[in-house]
Protein backbone atom coordinates (compact mmCIF):
# COMPACT_ATOMS: atom_id res chain seq x y z
CA UNK A 1 0.00 0.00 0.00
CA UNK A 2 1.39 3.41 -0.91
CA UNK A 3 2.10 6.00 1.76
CA UNK A 4 -0.85 8.23 0.95
CA UNK A 5 -3.25 5.29 0.75
CA UNK A 6 -2.07 3.88 4.08
CA UNK A 7 -2.29 7.32 5.67
CA UNK A 8 -5.87 7.90 4.65
CA UNK A 9 -7.15 4.36 5.04
CA UNK A 10 -9.92 4.04 7.61
CA UNK A 11 -9.50 0.26 7.89
CA UNK A 12 -8.31 0.55 11.48
CA UNK A 13 -11.23 2.78 12.51
CA UNK A 14 -12.79 1.34 15.64
CA UNK A 15 -15.25 4.02 16.57
CA UNK A 16 -12.82 6.61 17.87
CA UNK A 17 -11.79 9.51 15.66
CA UNK A 18 -9.03 10.27 18.13
CA UNK A 19 -7.54 6.75 17.85
CA UNK A 20 -7.70 6.99 14.08
CA UNK A 21 -5.98 10.38 14.07
CA UNK A 22 -3.31 9.24 16.50
CA UNK A 23 -2.55 6.25 14.27
CA UNK A 24 -2.19 8.60 11.32
CA UNK A 25 0.08 10.94 13.27
CA UNK A 26 2.41 8.05 14.07
CA UNK A 27 2.76 7.20 10.37
CA UNK A 28 2.77 10.63 8.81
CA UNK A 29 5.91 12.50 7.82
CA UNK A 30 4.58 15.82 9.14
CA UNK A 31 7.21 17.81 11.09
CA UNK A 32 7.23 16.94 14.80
CA UNK A 33 6.21 20.51 15.69
CA UNK A 34 3.05 20.12 13.61
CA UNK A 35 2.28 16.69 15.08
CA UNK A 36 2.66 18.13 18.59
CA UNK A 37 0.32 21.00 17.75
CA UNK A 38 -2.29 18.65 16.27
CA UNK A 39 -2.14 16.45 19.39
CA UNK A 40 -2.43 19.55 21.58
CA UNK A 41 -5.49 20.80 19.69
CA UNK A 42 -7.17 17.38 19.81
CA UNK A 43 -6.41 16.38 23.38
CA UNK A 44 -5.53 19.47 25.44
CA UNK A 45 -7.13 19.47 28.88
CA UNK A 46 -7.19 23.27 28.85
CA UNK A 47 -9.73 23.32 26.03
CA UNK A 48 -13.30 24.08 27.04
CA UNK A 49 -15.03 22.06 24.32
CA UNK A 50 -15.12 18.26 24.34
CA UNK A 51 -12.25 16.30 22.80
CA UNK A 52 -14.84 14.28 20.87
CA UNK A 53 -16.11 17.45 19.19
CA UNK A 54 -12.61 18.63 18.24
CA UNK A 55 -11.66 15.19 16.92
CA UNK A 56 -14.86 14.99 14.89
CA UNK A 57 -14.25 18.46 13.42
CA UNK A 58 -10.67 17.48 12.59
CA UNK A 59 -11.71 14.25 10.87
CA UNK A 60 -14.61 15.98 9.08
CA UNK A 61 -12.35 18.69 7.64
CA UNK A 62 -9.59 16.23 6.73
CA UNK A 63 -12.11 14.38 4.54
CA UNK A 64 -13.39 17.62 2.97
CA UNK A 65 -9.83 18.73 2.22
CA UNK A 66 -9.11 15.44 0.45
CA UNK A 67 -12.30 15.81 -1.58
CA UNK A 68 -14.03 12.94 0.21
CA UNK A 69 -17.47 12.70 1.79
CA UNK A 70 -17.01 13.29 5.54
CA UNK A 71 -18.24 10.52 7.84
CA UNK A 72 -17.43 12.24 11.14
CA UNK A 73 -20.49 14.06 12.43
CA UNK A 74 -20.19 17.69 13.51
CA UNK A 75 -22.99 19.82 15.05
CA UNK A 76 -25.57 20.46 12.33
CA UNK A 77 -25.69 24.21 12.98
CA UNK A 78 -21.91 24.45 12.62
CA UNK A 79 -21.55 22.31 9.49
CA UNK A 80 -21.68 25.16 6.95
CA UNK A 81 -19.29 27.28 9.02
CA UNK A 82 -16.78 24.43 9.39
CA UNK A 83 -16.94 23.70 5.66
CA UNK A 84 -16.23 27.35 4.91
CA UNK A 85 -13.29 27.47 7.31
CA UNK A 86 -11.91 24.34 5.64
CA UNK A 87 -12.34 25.29 1.99
CA UNK A 88 -13.05 29.04 1.70
CA UNK A 89 -11.91 30.64 4.95
CA UNK A 90 -11.82 34.13 3.46
CA UNK A 91 -15.58 33.93 2.83
CA UNK A 92 -16.52 33.57 6.52
CA UNK A 93 -18.88 36.36 7.55
CA UNK A 94 -19.36 38.05 10.90
CA UNK A 95 -23.01 37.05 10.90
CA UNK A 96 -22.09 33.36 10.62
CA UNK A 97 -20.01 33.57 13.77
CA UNK A 98 -22.78 35.58 15.45
CA UNK A 99 -25.32 32.91 14.47
CA UNK A 100 -23.23 30.18 16.08
CA UNK A 101 -23.00 32.17 19.29
CA UNK A 102 -26.73 32.96 19.20
CA UNK A 103 -27.33 29.22 18.78
CA UNK A 104 -25.70 28.52 22.12
CA UNK A 105 -22.05 27.93 21.21
CA UNK A 106 -19.70 29.76 23.57
CA UNK A 107 -16.75 31.86 22.42
CA UNK A 108 -14.49 28.96 23.45
CA UNK A 109 -16.54 26.43 21.48
CA UNK A 110 -16.37 28.52 18.31
CA UNK A 111 -12.68 29.32 18.81
CA UNK A 112 -11.73 25.69 19.38
CA UNK A 113 -13.84 24.34 16.51
CA UNK A 114 -12.24 26.96 14.26
CA UNK A 115 -8.74 26.04 15.39
CA UNK A 116 -9.43 22.30 14.94
CA UNK A 117 -10.84 22.93 11.44
CA UNK A 118 -7.95 25.21 10.45
CA UNK A 119 -5.32 22.82 11.77
CA UNK A 120 -6.92 19.92 9.95
CA UNK A 121 -7.12 21.79 6.64
CA UNK A 122 -3.51 22.95 6.91
CA UNK A 123 -2.02 19.68 8.15
CA UNK A 124 -3.96 17.62 5.60
CA UNK A 125 -2.76 19.82 2.72
CA UNK A 126 0.79 19.55 4.02
CA UNK A 127 0.46 15.74 4.27
CA UNK A 128 -0.83 15.60 0.69
CA UNK A 129 2.04 17.77 -0.54
CA UNK A 130 4.63 15.65 1.28
CA UNK A 131 3.06 12.47 -0.09
CA UNK A 132 3.16 13.89 -3.62
CA UNK A 133 6.84 14.82 -3.19
CA UNK A 134 7.64 11.35 -1.87
CA UNK A 135 5.91 9.68 -4.82
CA UNK A 136 7.68 12.00 -7.27
CA UNK A 137 11.03 11.19 -5.66
CA UNK A 138 10.24 7.45 -5.79
CA UNK A 139 9.26 7.73 -9.46
CA UNK A 140 12.46 9.63 -10.26
CA UNK A 141 14.57 7.04 -8.46
CA UNK A 142 13.00 4.04 -10.18
Amino acid at each position, binding site marked *: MRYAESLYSTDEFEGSWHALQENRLRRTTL*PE*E*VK*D*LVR*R*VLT*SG*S*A*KSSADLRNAVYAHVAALTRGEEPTAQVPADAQTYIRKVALD*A*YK*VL*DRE*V*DALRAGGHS*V*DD*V*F*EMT*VAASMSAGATRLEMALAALEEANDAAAS
Partner: protein
Amino acid sequence: MRLPLDAHLRPIQKLALWAFTAVFGSAPSPVLIASYNKSFFGNGWAPCMKKGMRSATEWSVGEVELFAAFVSRLNSCGY
Protein backbone atom coordinates in the same frame (compact mmCIF):
# COMPACT_ATOMS: atom_id res chain seq x y z
CA MET B 1 -11.37 39.35 14.18
CA ARG B 2 -14.92 38.26 14.87
CA LEU B 3 -14.67 36.59 18.25
CA PRO B 4 -14.18 38.88 21.27
CA LEU B 5 -10.95 37.13 22.21
CA ASP B 6 -9.47 40.31 23.71
CA ALA B 7 -12.21 40.33 26.36
CA HIS B 8 -10.98 36.98 27.64
CA LEU B 9 -7.29 37.79 27.98
CA ARG B 10 -5.47 37.95 31.31
CA PRO B 11 -4.72 41.48 32.67
CA ILE B 12 -1.04 41.31 31.69
CA GLN B 13 -2.02 40.26 28.16
CA LYS B 14 -4.56 43.10 27.97
CA LEU B 15 -1.83 45.54 28.97
CA ALA B 16 0.51 44.20 26.29
CA LEU B 17 -2.31 44.39 23.76
CA TRP B 18 -3.06 47.98 24.75
CA ALA B 19 0.62 48.92 24.30
CA PHE B 20 0.74 47.15 20.93
CA THR B 21 -2.40 48.94 19.75
CA ALA B 22 -1.06 52.31 20.97
CA VAL B 23 2.13 51.86 18.96
CA PHE B 24 0.87 50.14 15.81
CA GLY B 25 -2.74 51.32 15.66
CA SER B 26 -4.45 47.94 15.79
CA ALA B 27 -4.04 44.54 17.36
CA PRO B 28 -2.94 41.88 14.87
CA SER B 29 -5.29 38.90 14.88
CA PRO B 30 -2.47 36.29 14.89
CA VAL B 31 -1.16 37.75 18.16
CA LEU B 32 -4.63 37.60 19.71
CA ILE B 33 -5.21 34.05 18.54
CA ALA B 34 -1.82 32.91 19.82
CA SER B 35 -2.43 34.63 23.17
CA TYR B 36 -5.90 33.22 23.80
CA ASN B 37 -5.78 30.07 25.98
CA LYS B 38 -2.11 29.62 25.10
CA SER B 39 -1.81 26.11 26.46
CA PHE B 40 -4.50 24.98 24.02
CA PHE B 41 -3.02 26.53 20.87
CA GLY B 42 -0.48 29.37 21.14
CA ASN B 43 2.24 27.43 22.98
CA GLY B 44 2.19 24.74 20.28
CA TRP B 45 1.76 27.15 17.38
CA ALA B 46 4.86 29.22 18.20
CA PRO B 47 7.33 26.35 17.49
CA CYS B 48 5.53 25.65 14.20
CA MET B 49 5.87 29.29 13.18
CA LYS B 50 9.55 29.25 14.13
CA LYS B 51 10.11 26.05 12.16
CA GLY B 52 8.24 27.31 9.12
CA MET B 53 9.37 30.93 9.07
CA ARG B 54 12.85 30.86 10.58
CA SER B 55 14.33 27.38 10.04
CA ALA B 56 14.59 27.26 6.27
CA THR B 57 18.11 26.60 5.03
CA GLU B 58 17.53 27.23 1.33
CA TRP B 59 15.85 30.63 1.73
CA SER B 60 16.61 33.81 3.63
CA VAL B 61 14.20 35.14 6.29
CA GLY B 62 13.21 37.94 3.92
CA GLU B 63 12.40 35.48 1.12
CA VAL B 64 10.30 33.33 3.46
CA GLU B 65 8.41 36.40 4.66
CA LEU B 66 7.81 37.38 1.04
CA PHE B 67 6.45 33.90 0.24
CA ALA B 68 4.12 34.10 3.26
CA ALA B 69 2.88 37.56 2.31
CA PHE B 70 2.32 36.47 -1.30
CA VAL B 71 0.36 33.36 -0.31
CA SER B 72 -1.71 35.38 2.18
CA ARG B 73 -2.47 37.89 -0.57
CA LEU B 74 -3.61 35.09 -2.88
CA ASN B 75 -5.88 33.85 -0.09
CA SER B 76 -7.34 37.35 0.29
CA CYS B 77 -6.09 37.24 3.82
CA GLY B 78 -4.76 40.29 5.66
CA TYR B 79 -1.15 39.62 6.54
